[in-house]
């Protein structure tokens, strides 16, 4: 039994009554209850995924809240926070309401909507954060896109102080990414595909950490993939800034070498990076610099990935 929030890490039994957990202790008597033997296995509280794309409303052919919810519980996730790049974008309380309503009806996993930080994810006008939080939004993010205008990013973070909600940043300088589809480096060079340099992430992580310091906002860096970013988050934390970060399972287990066969399932944003980046992410997770593993579950229809590497949309499934 591993339950960090209860300080539990050792063998124990769980009593479930009427679908609810009634007791967690070592050496419980089974009595006439149905006993399931899970000795030698791990039992943990249900996982929380801070970063999923549920594609509903608008792109239900890829995934919808019902199927996303079922995948989630099949993999042990009881709660997920879903991003706002749906269609329409979740930049209005009516869309937040819709998502929560769908989730209530169809999803076995709890859903917490993350609302857009700017209207239409256009990176120009901040969203109505007060009404969105009232509707149930838990955080704000333009994930899928980036707020390229630093002045806008600043105002978004300042405004977020009023609702005390984190701003989740997809750190990627689009002007440095350019046409890049694979991590810029030896593998991209061999493949002859345009590279997306790690600096594109580092530049924005640096920017957004400094904006967090200026504005006092809580900035959460999504899908950290580079050693540089891990280092900056570590330094920020040492200085006591309110900066948190997450890393994906794929950035902890795969490098850009996985792209060598041109499999489009290995194409995502940010891209799989080099070995030293992977090691840095693992070290960051181990020392607490990276606060969570979040899947960035980004499903697409099969036919959408069955195209050439440049055309294929970014995303890998996580749930």
């Amino acid at each position: 039994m591993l339950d960090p929030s209860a300080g539990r890490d050792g063998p124990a039994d769980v009593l479930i009554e009427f679908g609810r957990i009634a007791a967690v202790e070592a050496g419980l008597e089974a009595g006439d209850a149905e006993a399931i033997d899970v000795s030698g296995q791990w039992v943990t509280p249900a996982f929380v995924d801070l970063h999923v794309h549920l594609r509903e409303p608008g792109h239900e052919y890829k995934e919808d809240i019902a199927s996303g919810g079922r995948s989630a519980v099949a993999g042990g996730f009881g709660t997920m926070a879903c991003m706002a790049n749906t269609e329409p974008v979740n930049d209005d309380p009516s869309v937040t309401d819709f998502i929560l309503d769908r989730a209530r009806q169809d999803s076995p996993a709890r859903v917490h909507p993350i609302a857009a930080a700017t209207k239409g994810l256009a990176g120009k006008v901040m969203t109505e954060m007060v009404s969105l939080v009232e509707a149930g939004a838990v955080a704000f993010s333009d994930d899928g896109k980036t707020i390229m205008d630093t002045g806008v990013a600043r105002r978004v973070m300042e405004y977020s102080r009023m609702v005390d909600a984190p701003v989740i940043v997809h750190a990627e300088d689009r002007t440095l990414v350019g046409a890049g589809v694979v991590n810029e480096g030896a593998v991209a060079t061999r493949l002859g595909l345009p590279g997306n340099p790690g600096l594109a992430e580092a530049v924005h992580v640096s920017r957004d950490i400094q904006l967090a310091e200026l504005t006092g906002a809580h900035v959460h860096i999504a899908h950290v993939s580079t050693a540089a970013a891990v280092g900056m988050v570590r330094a920020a934390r040492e200085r006591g800034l309110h900066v948190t970060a997450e890393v994906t399972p794929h950035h902890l287990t795969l490098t850009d070498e996985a792209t060598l066969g041109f499999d489009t399932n290995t194409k995502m944003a940010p891209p799989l990076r080099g070995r030293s980046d992977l090691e840095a992410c693992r070290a960051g997770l181990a020392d607490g610099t990276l606060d969570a593993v979040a899947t960035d579950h980004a499903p697409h229809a099969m036919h959408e990935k069955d195209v050439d590497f440049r055309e294929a949309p970014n995303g890998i499934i996580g749930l």
Partner: protein
Amino acid sequence: MIGRDLLLIDDLSREEIETILETAQHMREVGEREVKKVPTLRGRTLVNLFFEPSTRTLTSFEIAGKRLSADVVNFSPKSSSLSKQESILDTARTIDAMDPDAVVVRHRVAGVPKRIADVLDVPVINAGDGAHAHPTQALLDLFTVQNEKGRIDGLSVAIVGDIAHSRVARSNIAGFQKMGAEVRVAAPPTMIPAQVETLGVKAYTSVREALEGADVVMMLRIQLERLEGALFPSVREYSATFGLDREKLRYARDDAIVMHPGPVNRGVELSHDLADRRPSVILDQVRNGVALRMAVLYLISGRRRPEGSDVRAAKGD
């Protein structure tokens, strides 16, 4: 105060402010007569040099000057988007060469009245410069509160709105504090200026907290055209979070008064019903504004210069 500029309310001592308010009290009575005229400034020339358009403040100064029997001239140069210092000062020198007794200046950029005052010998009165200062507005607000509450000392004043861009906020913060009141400000975080606590105020992003126990609630006008989207997401959210209505007003004291420098964006910073009736004293502010400006004009340009003295040595008394 004779012959002195009035650029910043911070430059006035508490005693001087009290003198101005007392004088304004006498001047109020003039506006209540059938013949609204006293000969005090007869033969004096007052020039309103307004580089930034304004109806209320300009009319207020004009009526104030005329009630004192002064010859009032309104000069509003066509402002170009590239404001060249030279042409502002040349304009001011040209007016000066016509021997006015006082010049009232308004400009959309901070510091212009001071620059003009540095160059001119006649007294310059600041009618509002950018987001910097609006001393006569603060004085008429002090006058209004004193009339309503009988005192200013010990009162709690909450100023709500775009503090960062407001000259009314800055002058009122200074003025009310000088007269012994406690001042708080409330705004979205994007409209609170950096290190605002150095002005001696506590800043809130919750209007409910800011109104707790307030005697005076001062609402500022939001410049919709300039700011929507950049500093706050929508008029809808601004008015829901910071707009004053009867429900939010309940957090203030029961006998709190509501003020606004005008013009009011109805339904945005003030609900319709609050804009028009008690506890709002907005129209009293306007009435008091004329009396207050009469007091200021009288105190600054009221006394005749000694016969035969050098005109240029008249500054500073």
